[in-house]
């Protein structure tokens, strides 16, 4: 039973990692990374590593995507601003 959960979590991680790489739009990638972070947290918990799971949940599914979203916002705002000044 535990083995089956591990296998499912592993396959989910592999699939989400592929999706994170394949999503070329960084804002959407940030969302996929958040889900990947959660899947990793689940995997780590079933691998009997609750400490790491907790850490991954806080960092991988909240902090890193948040930082990426903020960067995306800055970059987009900048390019919008740049276009305005050109007009």
């Amino acid at each position, binding site marked *: 039973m535990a083995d089956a959960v591990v296998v499912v979590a592993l396959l989910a991680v*592999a699939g989400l990692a592929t999706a994170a790489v394949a999503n070329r739009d960084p804002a959407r990638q940030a969302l996929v990374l958040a889900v990947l972070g959660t899947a990793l947290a689940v995997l780590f918990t079933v691998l009997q590593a609750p400490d790491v799971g907790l850490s991954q949940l806080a*960092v991988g599914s909240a902090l890193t995507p948040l930082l990426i979203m903020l960067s995306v916002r800055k970059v987009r705002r900048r390019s919008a601003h740049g276009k305005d000044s050109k007009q």
Partner: protein
Amino acid sequence: MGSESAVTAVTHVLPYLVAAYVFLVGCYGLATSRNLIHAVGCLAVCQSATYVLLLAVGYRDGGTAPVFSDIRPGSRPVVDPVVQALTLTDVVVGATVTALLLALTVQIAKRHGTVDPDELRELRG
């Protein structure tokens, strides 16, 4: 018997293969990325592969988490705490290094007006 042993054989290496696959996918994304923010995200994917590998290496069948606040020491086998400690710190530190890379990307966007590596026309030759 044949199929069962095949299943065990797969579960014996599957976690390692998944780690290797995630690592390679991350490398592929990094090399072919058209957006530097996306590239930083791919690097984070590569990094998570190292966590999967480390924790898979430390797993023990039937083991429990090495925390003895609610189990009696010695009553059950526990998984390897060392790899968990290594991974735990690296997760948090990895996020801050990602932040450092994103900070550089934000500055590139400001100075070059683009985050597409194909359009960065400096530092050649």
